[in-house]
């Protein structure tokens, strides 16, 4: 285990939908600065875990501590403000808005929404827009240079792969402490996925102490990028450890391949 302090810690976290326990007494820790892979078959509760963690669904039981403070029971808005940001499994960008606008939605907490600045002090607003524009451009350049020249185009006209990059930029622009990536490579080829992960690692290197929880089905990505993995099956934690340890675990092989 790394010596870094624990950033996120789940204890007996559960979420029930009627008769189904989508997450069943889940307990694990995420250390500050690490990349944790969250893997498991379809329907094992990975995305539900993100939704409970970010307050979209209230937890049915258990607790989550983030940086020492309890965040279970907080609303999504409050959880975003403590520094947890996410992408969605199915893209949730605003297609009619420009690339820049979409990234700025993710920057909500750092923008000044006062009526004075926005309605009457156009020069001040102009400065703030320009600063944010430069920052967003710099961030998106890490992912795709040509995208940086399309900042004022509508997202609806941009390729699906670039939309994923924009979504990741939207989650990162506010400098979160914890980034939740829900299958960033869905629908991408192996090469594109590999490039995307390189880009994410590059951003992490520049940002310093960013912690990432990554849901991913592409095992090569998990193997290359993550420090540790947590394997879920039917909402329960099957095991955790480095990819090499997890891949050797007979329970995991059984869950994934159905070999008894």
């Amino acid at each position, binding site marked *: 285990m790394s010596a870094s302090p624990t950033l996120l810690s789940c204890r007996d976290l559960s979420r029930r939908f009627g008769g189904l326990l989508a997450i069943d007494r889940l307990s694990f820790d995420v250390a500050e600065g690490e990349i944790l892979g969250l893997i498991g078959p379809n329907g094992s509760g990975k995305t539900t875990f993100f939704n409970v963690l970010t307050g979209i669904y209230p937890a049915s039981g258990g607790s989550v501590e983030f940086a020492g403070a309890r965040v279970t029971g907080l609303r999504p808005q409050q959880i975003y403000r403590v520094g947890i940001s996410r992408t969605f499994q199915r893209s949730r960008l*605003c297609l009619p808005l420009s690339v820049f606008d979409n990234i700025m939605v993710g920057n909500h907490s750092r923008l000044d929404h006062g009526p004075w600045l926005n309605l009457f002090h156009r020069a001040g607003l102009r400065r703030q827009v320009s600063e944010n524009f430069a920052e967003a451009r710099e961030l998106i350049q890490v992912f795709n240079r040509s995208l940086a020249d399309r900042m004022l185009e509508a997202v609806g006209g941009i390729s699906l792969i670039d939309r994923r990059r924009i979504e990741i930029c939207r989650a990162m622009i506010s400098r979160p402490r914890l980034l939740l990536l829900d299958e960033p490579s869905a629908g991408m080829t192996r090469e594109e996925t590999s490039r995307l992960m390189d880009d994410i690692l590059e951003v992490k290197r520049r940002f310093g102490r960013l912690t990432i929880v990554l849901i991913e089905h592409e095992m090569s990505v998990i193997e290359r990028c993550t420090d540790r993995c947590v394997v879920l099956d039917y909402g329960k934690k099957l095991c955790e450890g480095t990819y090499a340890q997890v891949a050797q675990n007979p329970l995991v092989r059984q869950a994934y391949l159905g070999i008894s």
Partner: protein
Amino acid sequence: MPAAISRGRVSASAVAAVFAAGAALFLAVESQRGMLALLLAAGALVVAIRRLKGLRPFLQAASEHEETGALAGVAFTLLLCVLFRDDHFTVFLIGRVLLATLACLGLHLQFGSAGVANFAGAAFFGVGGYTAAILSAHSPIPHIVAVALGGAVSSLIGSLLLLPLLRTRGHYAALITIAFGLLFRTFAEVNDSLGGPQGLKLQGFQLFGWQFNEELAIGPFHGSFYINYVIAAVALLAIAFALVRGLDRSWLGLALDAVRLDETAAAAFGLEIARWKIVAFTLGNFLIGTAGALSAFMVGFIAPNNFTFAESLTFVSIVLLGGIGNAWGVALAAFIVVVLPEKLQILQEYRFLLFAALVIVVLRYRPQGLVPRPLRRYFRGLA
């Protein structure tokens, strides 16, 4: 780049001039044949503009100089008043177009920006009107303050609807506003202090001794007293327009867009959904109420029958026709929706049918409206 800037300004003024000329023709033509010919010509012009690619850079330059276009718009509106100075009815129509635009800017904030349905536009318009009528009849409050209070009371009564509105979505929220609209009309009809079905009369608007109901006379120039109201409406509309366009092109407009397009994603990035809906709904109702108050003074009379559900639908259709989310489109559509039925007397009772058909055609073939929602440009030259 002074050359490029002046080109943009010229383009914007030229676009305003074309619209003003069109408006003048529509207002001037009396014969039904002339009207039909004009409609065909307008249709042909729209097609031509879409086909002519050479116009694109010109229109682009114009769109980047909205302020110039708006100033030209004000100038041309006043010019129209000079042109039709003796014609009460035409000047009155111009005033109605301006006030419908003002009210629909309120709907633009609610419906176009934040996605909050409001099918009770006429009711909030009426709240503003009744407030102005009662305040001007029973209190010494200056009329201009009564107009502002009309907006404020409209916002206040709108806030009664907030609780159910924030707990419902989509069709259900729309139904709540419809119910409120019907309630308001019935209330006005049975309430004697509001004049019952006969309604209330208003005295003429006064501003620092300027009597709006007296014929306008500036030196040798004489004109219809309605020109006074048009001037006041232009002033209010200019303020509202600057406010709405400034809001559209700021972080506030972005927050409203995010709330409208995806509440879940917006909440995940810290946007307080309820707060933004309240801002849009309250501000929108203020504009609608203000328009209603000035309109009551201009018409000189208000009655429950002016604030029916059909009137609310007319406001909504102006926003739909103009292009949901485009303030300029709202102004264009307000002109079409207010003026066309008055001018197409040949169709008599059926003219509203034609108008309903027009809305259906727009929804089917051009759902984004006549002037689609533009991408947000915070400032000229941001790149």
